[in-house]
Structure formats: structure tokens, C-alpha cells
């Protein structure tokens, strides 16, 4: 059953025949009354654009000025997470590093019983010397539970280029798909929304200099999919309502109605995904923290931009260039 519809639908871009569009559907007034907190989203669109720019501009400036804080996965380096029996101080670790002529970032955790040390990519000899120095200067540590990463500079560069390649290919595929399935204006506003969401994640990660690890790219790509997914749901409704429009109806009101008709879904889906991500962020291990944080920002940005940016861009296009927007003739 599902398959038949899938084939027929995708080739003709028409809803399955057995759907009887409700006669006229609900009215704009009825939709407004469903929400106690109703407000006109479309009329205030310049506020939303300004709000986005307020976050985007500092982010872009920060990206240009200080860039991203790439973890060792992308720039190469060594990282040690060492557990001690007793509590230790930052000074002791720095001294141990100094004694073998190394320097690095030191970060204590777990009441000072655990330390995270990052350095440039160490050779085997440097690494052994460093661990010996730690044993001598600081005391014995739990060798069996030593956590260690080494990414040689060459490997880091490879990971970086493969990540960029993966993102670009995924983005092109997504764009091609929407352009084929929807009209130009949808692909255009969908793309801008996507760039908006990704720039917000990158910008915030740059402003706060949160470290970018291997899983970050997975989060960004998921947001790619999620954001477009979220946007498509609302654009799909606009397309559906546009077909039912009567001559005197205002385009702005129709879009506003579509947004509020899908508001329940937007809030509920956003809410559930955010619950799941909060659980990962708070309860999950250290290694999934960056992932959950990037996803959380992305889902927020994605939900926000689908409602407040994507459809407003369509309205803006319509207001400036006129014409029937976004629906193929049916």
C-alpha cells in the first residue's frame, strides 16, 4: 500500500487521490482561536529577521576573527585523561610537562582526581617520557584506565577534508532533491534557512570556543537533515493551502494560517527531540556532550527558522516579485 503511493506520488507530485480536501477547510479565524498565545507571525517578519541577524552577525565576526576551536581530531595532537588515586593540582601536571620540555593545556576534573592534558602530537618517546614524568612528579596513576588519543597531523588533515567533503556532498544532494520536488522559491528559502541554522551552530561554537570533535560533524549533518525536514513540513502546508486560496484572500494571511496549523506539530516534535537531547547532554558520557550540545542548538535554530524564517522568506519573495509562488499547477 505504502509503496504504490510512494511511486505514484513522487513521479507526479500530486497528493494521492483518495484524499478529499475538506471543503474550504478550517477558517483562518478558527485557527487563530486554537491558541491562546496566538500572534501574527507574518506581519512581524522583520523582527524575526533582525533577531536572527543579532545572533548571526556576532557569530560570523567571531568565525572570521578567532575561527573554530578544532579538537585534535582535526588539527592533530595528543590527549591524555589520567586518573589518580589522590587529588592533584594543576601545578604538579604543568611541572611534569615542563620537566620533559613539553607544554600543553591542563584541565582538572572529578574533584581533582582526574586530569585532561592536551599537547601537540607526541612521538612514542615523548609520550613515554611524559608518562614517566607524571609518575615521578605527581604520583602513580591508574594505567589500565588511562584514556589516550593521538592523531597525527596528516591524519587530522585527512579527517578534516573527508568531513568537508561529506558535508558538501550531503548539502548538494539535499538541495538537488528539494529543487526537483519543490519549486525554486522553496529550494531558495530552504537553502537560506539551512545556511542560517548551520551558521548559528558554527557561530556559537566559535564565540564560546567550544571544542569541535569528530562527532560534531555528525551533529551538523543531522541538523542539515532535521532543519530541512522541519522546514519542508511547513512549506508543504503552505503549498496545500495555496491551492485552496480564493482570489480575495491575502497571501500573508494564508501563510500565517499555515504556520499556526502546523504549530502544534512544530512545538511537540521540537519538544520531544529536545527532551531526548537534554537527556544525552546531562546523563550521557563526556564523549557525547559536544554532539548533544551542537544538536540542541541546531534543533532550536531549526525549529525557530522553519517557523520564523523559511516561510517569511517565501512571503517576502511573493511581496517583492509577485506571481503565484511555490505551487506547481495542479
Amino acid at each position: 500500500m505504502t509503496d504504490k503511493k510512494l511511486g505514484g506520488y513522487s513521479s507526479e507530485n500530486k497528493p494521492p487521490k483518495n484524499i478529499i480536501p475538506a471543503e474550504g477547510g478550517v477558517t483562518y479565524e478558527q485557527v487563530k482561536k486554537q491558541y491562546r498565545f496566538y500572534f501574527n507571525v507574518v506581519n512581524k517578519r522583520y523582527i524575526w529577521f533582525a533577531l536572527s541577524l543579532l545572533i548571526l552577525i556576532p557569530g560570523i565576526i567571531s568565525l572570521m576573527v578567532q575561527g573554530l576551536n578544532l579538537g585534535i581530531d582535526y588539527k592533530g595532537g595528543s590527549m591524555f585523561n589520567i586518573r589518580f588515586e589522590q587529588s592533584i593540582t594543576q601545578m604538579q601536571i604543568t611541572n611534569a610537562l615542563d620537566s620533559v620540555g613539553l607544554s600543553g593545556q591542563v584541565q582538572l576534573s572529578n574533584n581533582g582526581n582526574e586530569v585532561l592534558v592536551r599537547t601537540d602530537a607526541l612521538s612514542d618517546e615523548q609520550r613515554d617520557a611524559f608518562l614517566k614524568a607524571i609518575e615521578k612528579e605527581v604520583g602513580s596513576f591508574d594505567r589500565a584506565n588511562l584514556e589516550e588519543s593521538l592523531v597525527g597531523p596528516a591524519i587530522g588533515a585527512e579527517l578534516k577534508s573527508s568531513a568537508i567533503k561529506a558535508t558538501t556532498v550531503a548539502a548538494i544532494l539535499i538541495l538537488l532533491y528539494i529543487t526537483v520536488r519543490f519549486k525554486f522559491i522553496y529550494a531558495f528559502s530552504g537553502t537560506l534557512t539551512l545556511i542560517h541554522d548551520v551558521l548559528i551552530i558554527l557561530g556559537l561554537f566559535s564565540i564560546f570556543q567550544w571544542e569541535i570533535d569528530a562527532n560534531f560533524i555528525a551533529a551538523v549533518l543531522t541538523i542539515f537533515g532535521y532543519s530541512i525536514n522541519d522546514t519542508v513540513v511547513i512549506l508543504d502546508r503552505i503549498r496545500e493551502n495555496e491551492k485552496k486560496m480564493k482570489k480575495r484572500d491575502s497571501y500573508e494571511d494564508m501563510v500565517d494560517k499555515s504556520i499556526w496549523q502546523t504549530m502544534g506539530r512544530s512545538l511537540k516534535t521540537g519538544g520531544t527531540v529536545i527532551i531526548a537531547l537534554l537527556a544525552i547532554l546531562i546523563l550521557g558520557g563526556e564523549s557525547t556532550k559536544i554532539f548533544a550540545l551542537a544538536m540542541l542548538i541546531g534543533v532550536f535554530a531549526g525549529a525557530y527558522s522553519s517557523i520564523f524564517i523559511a516561510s517569511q522568506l517565501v512571503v517576502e519573495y511573493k511581496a517583492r516579485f509577485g506571481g503565484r509562488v511555490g505551487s506547481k499547477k495542479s
Partner: protein
Amino acid sequence: MKRGNVIKLTITVILVVAFVVLSIEPLSDPENGISLGLDLRGGVHLVLQAEPGKDSTTITADDMEKARAIIEQRVDALGVSEPYIQVDNQKKRVIVELAGIDNPDEAVELLKTTAKLTFRDSDGNILLDGSKLKDAKAAVDNSMGRPNYVVHITFTPEGANEFAKITTDLLGQNLAIYLDEQMIQNPVIRSPIVNGQGQIEGYASLEEAANYAVLLRSGALPVSMSIVEKYQVGALLGHDSLNKSLNACLVALIFIFLFMLVLYRLPGLIADFALTVFSVIVLWVLYGIGTVLTLPGIAGFVLSLGMTLDLNIIVFERIKEELRLGKSLRAAVDAGFSRAFITVFDSNLTTLFAAGALFLLGSSSIKGFAITLIIGILVSLFTAITFTRWIMRWIVGINPRMNKSFFGVKEVR
């Protein structure tokens, strides 16, 4: 019609409960269940890069194959279950993954050593090397009154002849024993050794002697290897990550279940039911294709859970809307599913594209994430659309006039 639906529903519920209960044990079995990645149970991931020697000879595929065989032999000696060893011929690398080992540090040491054994005279000339060894065994020699840890070596017949000649020539002089460029012993030859047997002394423990015996037995790597990538996770930390992730998943699931129930009542209950089926099917597929579950994999799983819910929410919201328009339950359910399918089809296909690109181009940890996401999306199309639709139809069929408030809709006047 009514009775038929009740029976179908009851049978489905019983089957699903049985399926879930019977799945728990085989899937979570530590030996034969879903295998866990080294980030979840400790272990080490190592990428060894073959370095061209001083004479800058090119490294051949044959060298790499030999290196792999030798490393495999050393890994076997470690007694690791399901080790993963792979050669990247293009980049001249050997990738080794050892999950669940107790002492990753020691293992790394054992794998990266070239282990070229040489016997040299006092001028440093190489007289004989380890390629002519037949066997090497660790032993304890108690003859000196305290335990002396040694490695007994046995030469091949050819090696034995050469060794006999060398020890005759160098009688009364030193014969240094080197492992790679490190001198491990420099004994004085007191009598010619003609039986092809020797003994290397001076190890701190039997374990250390045993490790060296493994190195000597497996032979020297044809090329020297350096570590270009290494991820080492202690068993304690891996276990901790596993527990935390499972905990996070469980809490997220409970919240989501309650959330759906409160928001959608009866359909919410159906969604929760479908979600359970979804989780178990995804785990079985992961198990079936032999995926190793890693932290990014768990994250991908949670994400696909979220997407399944989105499917349900889109459908249920649509049904609510249709109900508000005054449609009958049956018509609303049908219209809700059909109309939502259009939306869902586009949105999920887009995400599949992203996941596909990740799978093809991403590094190994990203692949783990992508594969669970892809499986999750495909399974969710079945559970959230087809499966949920059956159940909804059956339930509506039982009583087409049931109170619409079961669907979270206030009657519109």
C-alpha cells in the same frame, strides 16, 4: 468486523510482547549479543603507518601483507577476542582495533615494535639476525638462587651452523644482542654454542620475557611502523560511558513515552507501542548486519527515535485537524495517514540523503552514526506509518463512534 478486529489486536499485542521479551536476552548477551565498540568496553584503536627506510626503498603490497600477518600473530598472543586488523595498501597503513583488553598500553608496545633481533660484534657489525630463529620461549631460571627471567631461543639448522661459527670465532669476546637499535645484552662467549640454542637474560618479569618471546617468534616487521592515530579507552571508562548512555536513553525513552501519552492519549499509547517495536527491530537489524555499537551509534539511534516520533506527531496532528473539521473517526484516520505520508516522505528522504553521504564519506565513527540513522529511518517508515496505521484502523473499527477526546480533541461546536 468488530470481533475480528479485537482478535487481530489481541494477537498483535501478544506477539509483540513475546517478541520484545524474547529479544532481550539474545541481544544483550555479552558474548553473542550486539557487539560493543571499544569506546563502550575499553580497548585501543591504532593506526600504524609504515615508514620508508633510510635507503628510501618503496614499501610493497607484499611488505604490508607480511606486516599484517606478523601483527596478527602478535595480536593472537594477546588473546583478544574478535580483533580487527586491516591493511590500507594505498596509504601504507595497518589499522588495528582491540576491544576489551585489560592493558592497552602493553598491547600497543607489543604491536608497534619492529623487533629485529641482531647479534653484533664489538665493532657493531651485524653477524646474524632473528630471521634465522625457529622458536623463542620465555622461562624462569632458578639456578642462580633467585628467579631469573629468560627467553630461550632456538635457531633453524642453517642459523645454528652460523651461530656455531660465530661463537667459535668470537670465543672470549663479547657478542652483543640487539632488539632493533637497543642493546639488550652483551655477554662474553665462554664456549662455542653448537646446538643452535641460546638464552637471552635480564627481564624484569616472566610477563616481559613472554612478550619478547612473542616478538621474536612472530619475527621482525619488514618495515618500521609509527603510530599516527591512537584511541585508547580504559575498561572502567568504557563501562562508565556505556552505563551513562544506556541511562540517558532510558530516561529519554520514559519521558518521550509519557509525553506522547499525555499529548495524544489513545494514539499516544499506540505510538509508544510502535516505538517499542521500532527499537527492537532496529536492534535486531544492527545485530543481523554485525554492526559494532559505539557511542555515536547510540546517538544515531536516539535521533532516529526522535524522527519516528515526529512521524507519529505529524500523523496525529493531521488526524486531530481532520476530526475538528467534523470528519468521522475512520475518515480522519485515513486522511491523516495519507496526507501526512506526503510530508513524511519528503522529509525523511532528505535526511536519508544526508545519512547516506555521511556513510559513504565519513570516518569510521561517523559511519557508525550514519548506519544506525539509516536503519532507524527505514524501520520508522514501517513502524510509524504502516504498523501504526493497522493498529489505528483496527481500534477505530472496534468502535467507530468512540469519544473523540480519546484522540485529544475537544468537541468543536
